[in-house]
């Protein structure tokens, strides 16, 4: 049902924006500064740059990408907050930035201090190990842990660390949870043998397809598109999940006209087949997911409010 709703929302969003784009002919008053909260060269950074490239090619808008990394997107949030809100500054984050991270940072800001523009793609968050480990599903991991093997679990954010901890607790085992910067670092750690398994948000797609990596479980509320048979966190006894999206935000108070025009441009870029961003998003994240404008704003505020629950569950 949720999947259907999401698809419906995407379709509706697209349709609504397609018409509003025709109605409004907002164009940016200058080049758009695109802040990116992820390390250059990683999956999310590539995605942001490809979106910019596709929009440039189609609409002739100019983008200036800039890395503002660190603190799970909070550095970007704090930096973009006071930038001009006329549509000339946008930033790519994950919804986790506006939810768990903003809550945990306790930096005196909340989602209402930002303009939610649009999501681009959902995580395909899997719990992944190298296939040479011989594990087929998460039950094998639990068995190994119960047999006395120390298990190193790589994560890329405090929220995921909480989830990994709760997962161990639910299964009656303890993981050595290693936090690194970005999904690519988790993948490198798993490939190099520094970690036994870890969360990856879509970067694992190629390796899984090639048979080098295996999705042991889904970190989402629903099964993974690539490995639908892998159990979800709920199946494994954890009532929280890592559902989330890559998303563009702006400073608070961006005029609706500018926000919608940018959201439309993004939705159009990532949904047009043959576009670079569309190809990349489809391969790594199973296709674009557009939740734009007010719908996104409401979702972000809900995530922010709910973040406290997971935190207190994990600190028990």
């Amino acid at each position, binding site marked *: 049902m949720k999947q259907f709703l999401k698809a419906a929302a995407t379709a509706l969003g697209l349709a609504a924006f397609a018409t509003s784009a025709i109605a409004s002919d907002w164009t940016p008053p200058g080049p758009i500064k695109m802040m990116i909260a992820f390390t*250059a060269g990683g999956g999310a*950074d590539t995605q942001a740059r490809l979106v910019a490239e596709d929009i440039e090619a189609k609409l002739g808008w100019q983008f200036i990408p800039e890395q503002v990394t660190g603190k*799970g997107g909070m550095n970007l949030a704090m930096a973009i907050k006071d930038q001009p809100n006329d549509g000339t500054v946008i930033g790519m984050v994950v919804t986790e930035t506006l939810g768990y991270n903003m809550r945990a940072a306790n930096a005196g800001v909340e989602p209402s201090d930002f303009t939610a523009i649009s999501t681009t793609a959902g995580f395909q968050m899997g719990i992944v190990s190298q296939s040479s480990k011989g594990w087929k599903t998460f039950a094998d991991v639990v068995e190994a842990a119960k047999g006395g093997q120390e298990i190193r679990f790589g994560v890329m954010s405090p929220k995921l660390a909480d989830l990994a901890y709760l997962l161990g607790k639910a299964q009656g085992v303890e993981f*050595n949870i*290693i*936090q690194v910067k970005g999904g690519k670092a988790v993948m490198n750690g798993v490939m190099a043998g520094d970690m036994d398994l870890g969360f990856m948000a879509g970067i694992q797609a190629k390796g899984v397809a090639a048979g*080098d990596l295996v999705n042991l479980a889904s970190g989402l509320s629903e099964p993974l598109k690539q490995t639908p048979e892998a159990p979800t966190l709920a199946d494994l006894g954890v009532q929280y999940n890592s559902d989330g999206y890559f998303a563009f935000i702006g400073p608070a108070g961006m005029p609706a006209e500018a926000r919608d025009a940018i959201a439309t441009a993004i939705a159009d870029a990532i949904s047009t087949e043959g576009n670079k961003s569309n190809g990349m998003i489809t391969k790594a994240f199973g296709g674009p997911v557009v939740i734009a404008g007010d719908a996104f704003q409401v979702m972000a505020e809900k995530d922010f409010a709910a973040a406290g629950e997971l935190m207190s569950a994990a600190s028990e």
Partner: protein
Amino acid sequence: MGVGDYIWMGILAVFQGPEAFSLFGIGISITVLMVLAGFLLGIIVGATPGLAGPMAMAISLPILISAFGFSPDALLPVMGFLIGVMKGATVGGAVPAILFNTPGTPDAYMTTLDGYPMTRAGQARKALKLAHVSSASGDTFSDIVLILCAPFLAVLVEAYLDLPEKTALLILSLAFISSVIGGSVGKGLISMGLGLLAVYIGTGEEFYPRLSFGTQALAQGFPVATAVLGVLILGEVFRALEDLWHERRATAAAAEPAQTGDQHLHWADIRRIAPYIARSAVIGTVIGALPGIGSTLAATLGYSSGARRHARKRPQAVQFGEGAPEGIAATEAANSSVSGANLIPVLSLGIPGNAAAVFLILAAESIGGFNPGPGVFKFTAETVNPELVAAFGLFTMMMLANAMNWTIGGAFMRMAGVMVRVPKPILLPAVLLLTLTAIYVQEGRMLAIWFAIGFGVLGYLMRRVGMSPLPFVIAFILGGKLEDTARQAFAATGGDAWFLFTHPIAALFMALAVLFVALSLRKPSEAQR
């Protein structure tokens, strides 16, 4: 995908990259062009007293990145340019040393000892040719050692070192670097400590930005370009400007002795200097492979070992210091053979050993997609490891630069002699302006300029109290990695606070770190540099 496939892909990546223009129907790739441009610029920079290779690398890096962008396609052209500069400067440094008794780069000081006497004896052209052949041989030898060693070392590291050992290895490198650079272990450690302090501002895993006094300005930490360029380049410029202020020496035109006699380099000459080149190349390569020691010590060791051999074997010939061709050969082969070997710790461990390596790591980090370290050399069977292709591309570019060095390097080097006439009162402000521009181009905010000037003042003060800024810079580059690895090792060992001492190899590294510092403390200070 075998090793051969990867090598071939690396070569293709260089020669079949994006095309700059086509010559007689053959496309010339932009990468090849950038190596050439970097190499020529490097010779000019090396030949200009007061400028050095790292300075040109530092200034050109942000400009190159803004021109090529952050795409994977940018990696090879940008790195190619920097490698070209690095190699060109090594050759170029000998030019003013021989012609005007002024070393163009610090490691060419020993070249003046025999080079200038040869010029006075009317043999300048021959001396330049000798320097070129020796330098190019040393450099090529060193690169071959790099290409053969780095992958094996990296594979070994990855196979045997776990997170605690990697943490200990980083600590060992920092300890080693701070004890061998500069005249005093204490100053080296302070310099390193300051670097770590600076890099830990605003970074870390907590959401709350540490050490930032609650200011937004410090919350993101210092951009690496401001710290590195500030301390290394601006500090040097400030110091040089002050020296200039004090000296105001009359710049009398250097007298140019008439050049006479046979200026050709004969096979007999080469046979005579070959043993000196070989010995110095080995010395330089070994020194270069150890992070932090640098080309000046290599040049000194190469020269003194050559001098001893010469005095013993050919007491009747012209001795070192009196215009012996062997002296030039011994020095130039030694200081040039440092540059390739210096990349062994960079590529296999991710640890920079000198300023040039710092900028290569910086380039890789800014562009992304290539993380120097043991992870690069993963020979995957099914899928292509793009980092490995890039590594072999890097090797290809180094050999390409060597080929340029052998073919056109000599002629171009002899033309670069005019650079000694560039007046410092014009040169230094130009460097200052270019550096600040380069920082602004990369960071895009005024705050970065203030940070850089602050670090420049720090670099100036460090130089004034005789503290080498290099441990600072290397600590700044490695600090983040050290913290990450340590945190990960702590987590991976299930929260064992003694992970550095409970794992045998890690404990060994820690013991070595203490030993190096202790031994350097005991050594009389003049023996260290």
